[in-house]
């Protein structure tokens, strides 16, 4: 699925000067399977990019299209299959259910498509160093541990694009690289692309294209 940002300008960012290569105000095409690093300093609209690209914000001018169709025309029911099988997101605030266990958070997502087995989920947690947290409430985990749960959750569904909003902000380099390895493997498996927003750290990520805001 190709995503096109055509002259998109979010209303809150309209008063800011954006560079010539910025996504905002230009025509940018995100081609299927691309691995994109979106580097920008604070306040340039990284989270706004995440929210607008998956239809959670509509306060912008211009047009965002999925395979040529304006996403503003999608109804809530149209978004359901897209969010279940085409676009997966790791939000900056993670959006976990803190009063539920790690297990419940992951099962709740996996129930929609039953795309991976419980064993796979447990293995992924194990790989990321939090295998022992399966029964623990997410609210009792550190931010770094919660980030890893959110990553496993996002990878459990089928997707064509994985949108990640500063997903490693609370992780050290070693853990961030482990996460990146898992993400790469899953993208390879699904033939999917990703957009990774970052404040500047690249941690030797393997990306094919870098965009600016």
């Amino acid at each position, binding site marked *: 699925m190709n995503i096109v940002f055509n002259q998109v300008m979010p209303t809150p960012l309209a008063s800011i000067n954006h560079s010539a290569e910025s996504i905002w105000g230009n025509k940018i095409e995100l081609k299927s399977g691309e691995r994109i690093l979106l580097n920008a300093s604070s306040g340039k609209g990284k989270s706004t990019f995440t929210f607008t690209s998956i239809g959670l914000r509509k306060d912008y001018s211009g047009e965002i299209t999925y395979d040529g169709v304006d996403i503003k025309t999608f109804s809530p*029911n149209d978004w359901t299959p897209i969010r279940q099988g085409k676009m997966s997101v790791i939000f900056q605030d993670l959006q976990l259910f803190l009063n*539920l266990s790690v297990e419940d958070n992951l099962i709740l*997502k996996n129930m929609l498509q039953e795309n991976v087995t419980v064993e796979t989920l447990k293995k992924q947690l194990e790989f990321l160093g939090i295998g022992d947290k399966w029964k623990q409430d997410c609210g009792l985990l550190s931010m770094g541990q919660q980030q890893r749960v959110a990553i496993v959750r996002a990878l459990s569904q089928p997707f064509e694009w994985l949108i990640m909003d500063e997903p490693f902000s609370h992780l050290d380099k070693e853990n961030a690289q482990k996460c990146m390895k898992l993400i790469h493997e899953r993208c390879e498996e699904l033939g999917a692309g990703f957009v990774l927003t970052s404040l500047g750290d690249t941690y030797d990520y393997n990306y094919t294209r870098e965009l600016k805001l």
Partner: protein
Amino acid sequence: MLNKVLFRNQDKKQLIIAMMGAFMGITFLVTSIHYLIKVNEFGKGEEILGPNTIIVQKKVSNASTLNLTKTDFSLKEIEKIKAKSFIQDVKPVESNNFDVSFETDRTEKLVPYFRSDVFVQTVDADFLDIKVPNWKWKKGDAFVPIILPREFIVMLNTFMSAQEIPQVSDDLAMKLKFKFRLRDPNNSSKEEHVNVQIIGFTNEVSSILVPASFMQYGNEVYAGTVENKITQIMISGKESEFGLVEEMLKERGLESKNSQMVVGRLKSVVGTLIFVVLGVSIIAVFVSGLVLIQYLQLLLSRNAYEVRTLLRMGYPPKDLIRSFSMYFIKIFGIVSVIGVGIFFIFKYFLDNMFETGGLYIGTDLACVSIAALALAYILFGLASYLNAKRGIFNEY
């Protein structure tokens, strides 16, 4: 799992208060509708006259005896009574202007021959609790259907008892052969015999009731040009407004049989009381339904994060709408089942109470009361669904 997320943040105290309100409202709603119907049905079927129907005539005074005042009704008077808001219908009771006698058929073996001059009247079929096809007559028919005053059969049985002949039951009387002898009062040689058949009995009318077509025939053929005066009228009052009918009778110097008035008055008083309870119950069900809906909205706003996150994860809006609306439909269902259960307990005690008090109302279930509950349930289900839908889509 979905319910574990959506219904975790609840104030159960508020939910229990709303459920108690709904439970009380439902119990009183079903109870009051049931008894409103039963009280209105009271007396139905026992009397051939329709419910809330009375026969009235002008009070006979000394002045009327001296022909100074009229005892008959003009058409204008009837129209005036009909125009009253609490009156459902008014029709004249027509009387015979020809001579008529009631006699047993000479071939009848079960009862001895007897003959008596009688007075016949006719009332509109709308005022009678009988099937209209049975209340018809045309010249050439095998018999004239008649409704006999019960006093008449009592009198007949008294006579039979004195003669040491077995008495006749209602059923047997309806099978016996009787005849009318019609005669012109001015020409005694002009007479005719017609077969009659008793199709019912009445406590409220002292004359024999015949179909209007037979009365018309008798008056045309055997009464000649004698003017047909209306001395009695039938009045059908609206439910629960019998007090106004009574007041009007007093104002206009009209009178009716006391028994007819007592039943009407009793039904009116009890009906009004139950109607008030019904009004309060409807308000209670409406308010408690509203509180439950408000609780649904509160639950939605308390779980806004959960709803939003589930939608972002890809949960279909219809799944979440179903979860919320079904939760409240189930709550209302549980409350309704308990309410109906308590109604049956109430019913057991109330039926006994009414019976002890001499009010023999029907004890079978008035299905309308359950239908009213079903309607309230459907409306609540619809309101829950629409509110849940609005709440979920607001989070999109």
